[in-house]
């Protein structure tokens, strides 16, 4: 995943597929307002690698007089300060225990990352963008970073040669940000007394720093350092906007998520590219969105159902949350014939991605999961949201408490299970998105045995099973014993072009039990009844038609079409001398660019050929050096894209 460009909110990531909602947009708007030079946004900020651990270390060391400021250690306050501290109502006392609370920790972590991060531009070279001496910027002086004893700050500062200053920019009723400006450390700096800054409220602070949120607009703070142009700043004037904030804390789990969800992020870059080259004919082989029309045999069933809804006989209201009986039965008999899966083991849904979240809700926050690395990002992101993970560790590009099972050409895209510590839940996608590798029967037998030995549950994602050409298993339930250790998630999206129509299913065998013997299916059923209300009945009519003899043939035709696309792409990269994986059992081609950064390759391909692909590292650190090319596209577009690839890499 790319570095977040310049964090706008201290603990924020750019989020959306919608540029207008994204923080980048907010940032640009913000910087326009305060007139900061463009170069800030152009440059990505490389944030500190060690901040999470450093903060954690500080918070967990018993010998450190940590939080000395917080604990009102007189060494850091003069007596007047103490008096004032005592009379301020609601002054938060951050004890170590409090600091270990996730939300508080998160907030500080965000500030730390900003404060102690490496910056790719030199703040000292910035000229004062504010012009006047009055601005709505508060320089958060080093001593005010009160979680950390000054000694530690100094130590860190010496080593990186800068002392952190957080600036809180307060601009609008609702927008504020913390931007760090670093200044050279000066040991002679006078200690700032906080007493001088208690008269007027600083309107916003995104931080839970205990420093009083008050500041005197007229008393210019003496900077303890050579004053930077940038920092000739005064606190927000009193009339500065006090955006109303609720007292509800942000969910710490969501704050942990990195940057945007991969595909919205790609959509954003695509849109930015379109702005840059309005006339370019952009071809998207990125997100893996189906492009071919749905066969008539299937749409006619849906239009019939839609029409029937306007008749007395044909109208139906709420359906069963688990899906309509005929569809459940057709799924069981089409995909799981002879595998001992019963109709009522099938739960129909609005798609695999939605079911993955519902499964996470079933399992809760106290479990440990393993994923293939690389893998479809929704597994990890939903796990983070559920609170199963620790923090993101920038250096290894992994979340703590998730087991990343490396799958690469060297191990035949199947993890070395002997090196994996015991997970509760194993997400396993085959044919794999993004590598396109389909696990062999032997590999899956190993996987099932591993799960059984460890008492783990496999969540098997078979959304691409119909793309399998050879005799690799199409369902985990082809493996003996799998019903006791696995459930399977699947979807009509890639079979029948139902990406927009929305229909999928999950199979949970009755034999799958929690450690206390309680059936997993019963809890999943409860979730489906409470958190979901069934898939659209029109989509279900379409799904049923898919599984009729005509429908099955029609689906095979569509799949055959995409597989031909796949061949064209594979041949193209082959002929250019690239190592190409996938493509045989899946509509994805996994191209190796050894030694290169995937986002760079992605950007190069987009810039030079106007073709959108997906950078491998978006699927996890194991995807670094790869790019995924999707075979979903009109034939002429795939051909054109391949022509452009040949031109670029000839």
């Amino acid at each position, binding site marked *: 995943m790319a570095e977040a460009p310049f964090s706008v*909110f201290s*603990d924020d990531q750019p*989020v*959306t*597929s*919608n540029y207008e*909602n994204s923080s980048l947009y907010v940032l640009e708007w913000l910087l326009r307002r305060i007139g900061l030079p463009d170069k800030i946004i152009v440059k990505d900020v490389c944030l500190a690698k060690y901040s999470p651990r450093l903060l954690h270390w500080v918070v967990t060391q018993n010998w450190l007089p940590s939080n000395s400021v917080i604990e009102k250690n007189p060494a850091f306050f003069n007596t007047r300060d103490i008096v004032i501290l005592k009379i301020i109502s609601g002054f938060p006392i951050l004890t170590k225990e409090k600091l270990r609370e996730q939300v508080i920790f998160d907030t500080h972590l965000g500030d730390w990352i900003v404060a102690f991060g490496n910056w790719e531009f030199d703040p000292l070279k910035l000229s004062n963008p504010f012009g006047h001496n009055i601005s709505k910027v508060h320089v958060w002086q080093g001593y005010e970073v009160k979680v950390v004893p000054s000694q530690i700050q100094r130590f860190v500062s010496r080593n990186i040669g800068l002392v952190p200053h957080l600036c809180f920019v307060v601009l609008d009723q*609702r927008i504020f940000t913390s931007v760090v400006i670093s200044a050279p450390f000066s040991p002679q700096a006078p200690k700032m007394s906080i007493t001088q800054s208690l008269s007027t409220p600083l309107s916003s602070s995104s*931080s839970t720093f205990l420093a009083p949120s008050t500041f005197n607009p007229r008393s210019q703070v003496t900077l303890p350092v050579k004053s930077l142009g940038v920092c000739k700043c005064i606190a927000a004037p009193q009339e500065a906007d006090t955006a109303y*904030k*609720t007292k*509800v804390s*942000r*969910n*710490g789990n*969501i704050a942990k*998520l990195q940057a945007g969800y991969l595909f919205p992020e790609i959509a954003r870059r695509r849109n930015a590219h379109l702005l840059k080259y309005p006339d370019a004919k952009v071809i998207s082989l990125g997100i893996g969105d189906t*492009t*071919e*029309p*749905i066969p008539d045999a299937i*749409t006619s069933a*849906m239009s019939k159902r*839609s*029409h029937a*809804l*306007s008749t007395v006989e044909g*109208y139906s*209201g*709420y359906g069963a949350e688990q899906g309509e009986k005929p569809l459940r039965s057709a799924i069981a008999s089409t995909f799981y014939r002879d595998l001992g899966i019963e109709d009522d083991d099938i739960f129909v849904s609005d798609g695999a*991605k*939605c079911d993955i*979240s519902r499964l996470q809700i079933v*399992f*809760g*926050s*106290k*479990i440990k999961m393993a994923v293939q690395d690389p893998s479809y990002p929704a597994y990890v992101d*939903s796990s983070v*949201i559920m609170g199963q993970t620790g923090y993101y560790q920038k250096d290894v590009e992994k979340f703590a408490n998730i087991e990343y099972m490396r799958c690469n050409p060297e191990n035949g895209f199947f993890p070395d299970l002997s090196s994996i510590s015991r997970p*509760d839940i194993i997400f396993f996608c085959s044919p794999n998105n993004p590598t396109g590798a389909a696990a062999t029967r032997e590999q899956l037998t190993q996987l099932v045995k591993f799960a*059984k030995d460890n*008492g783990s*549950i496999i969540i098997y994602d078979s959304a691409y099973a119909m793309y399998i050409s050879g005799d690799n298993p199409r369902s985990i339930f082809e493996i003996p014993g799998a019903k*006791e*250790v696995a459930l399977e998630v699947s979807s009509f999206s890639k079979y029948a072009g139902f*990406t*927009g129509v*929305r229909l999928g299913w999950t199979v949970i065998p009755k034999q799958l039990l*929690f*450690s206390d*013997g309680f059936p997993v299916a019963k809890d999943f059923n409860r*979730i489906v009844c409470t*958190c*979901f*209300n069934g*898939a659209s*009945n*029109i*989509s279900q009519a379409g799904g049923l038609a898919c599984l009729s003899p005509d429908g099955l043939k029609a689906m095979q035709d569509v799949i055959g079409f995409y597989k031909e696309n796949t061949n064209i792409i594979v041949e193209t990269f082959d002929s250019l001398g690239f190592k190409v994986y996938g493509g045989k059992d899946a509509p994805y081609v996994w191209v190796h660019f050894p030694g290169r950064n995937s986002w760079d390759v992605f950007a190069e391909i987009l810039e030079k050929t106007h073709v959108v692909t997906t950078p491998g590292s978006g699927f996890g650190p194991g995807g670094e050096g790869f790019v995924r090319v999707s075979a979903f596209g009109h034939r002429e577009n795939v051909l054109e894209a391949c022509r452009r690839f040949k031109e670029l890499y000839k």
Partner: protein
Amino acid sequence: MYKTSIFSYTLNTNVLQPKMVVARLKNPSPRIGHCTKVPRNSNMEKLQHGYLFPEIERHEHMHLQKYPHANIIDLGIGDTTEPLPTMVTSSMVDFVRGLSTSKGYKGYGPEQGEQALRKAIADVYYKDLGIKPTEVFVSDGAQCDITRLQLLMGPNLKIAVQDPSFPAYIDSSVIIGQAGDFVDKVGKYKNIEYMKCGPQTNFFPDLHKASRPELIFFCSPNNPTGHAATRKQLEQLVDFAKVNGSIIIFDSAYSAYITDDSPKSIFEIPGAREVAIEVSSFSKFAGFTGVRLGWTVVPEELLYSNGFPVAHDFNRIMCTCFNGASNIAQAGGLACLSPEGFRAVKSLINYYMENARILVNALSSLGLTVYGGKNAPYVWVHFPGSKSWNVFAEILEKTHVITVPGSGFGPGGEEYIRVSAFGQRDSIIEASERLKYLLYQEEN
């Protein structure tokens, strides 16, 4: 005088007591066979019994087994029964036909919903209220959005609900881990604030008594009581939220049924943009219960305590845990909001409200105290001194009419049953007759 306590008669022993069907789904003896080592989610264990409506369905099945030829009339779950306007279905048919052509085919849509639909919702439902299309998130229904909102907010906060209220608020809260243990004695979860809404307080909670919650689920017109909060009440609510720094999740799924000048949206109240989210749905407005379409409005001004916009995180949830509502349903939704479509669905609403009048008249003519039915398709009937599950069971046993026991909506619903006005006119009239006959028999 009619006896209003007739239902406290000794019950037929065959009638299931709710406690007996409380599927405490714990397995007493571990099953033979492989158990994984994955512990069951303790939040799931905290859930009390089957989700209310599937539970009622079980009763219906058992009743049918006992009386295979009974002509059951379902005034329970509140499921729409009237066909969709042709204008709406033909839009969906056109869209579906388009999907089989190169030109009309569409794959993944935006997770937040089609632009045109977001705009139409903002224009039609929030005209003059300053809601922007980008603040509207289209979904597959209010119930699903409630869970996504719970995921958004996470386990470390306290919620308040109206008591009685739609059970999904509490159940989703339990599942996400906010609720604490269930206290049998009072029939409540420890960490949930139950705000009693009874006739004594005009179905609005005494906010002075409520301790500070982070989230307030508030449904108006209310399911099950049928009460639509007045402007003054909602002003109090917004004020309460503002003073406490709470966020209101306002469920307006029945707003189209309001006949007087009660607010149809929380955003009619000044200042609500800073404290409220609104969840709504096409289910009851346009008969989309099976088609699945709803929406949630998250205003830009709504901020967490650290100033971060709630909408950003909700957007992230929509992108990660959801993939957009079915595009066919969205085409139908757009048609409902055209002037012609709007008129057509309005006539469906009038039809159900006429049903409600019939039920209210029938039940009041028997001397029962009846609430709701004026601004909502639900009639809330009081049986003082009786257990609502008993009343439910006796009505089912003797009239083959399915209602919903009030206590299924929380302890505050005890002594009440909810009768839904969703049904074909004949069934409604027939049900009214049967109820009258039953009560007449009991009388003599």
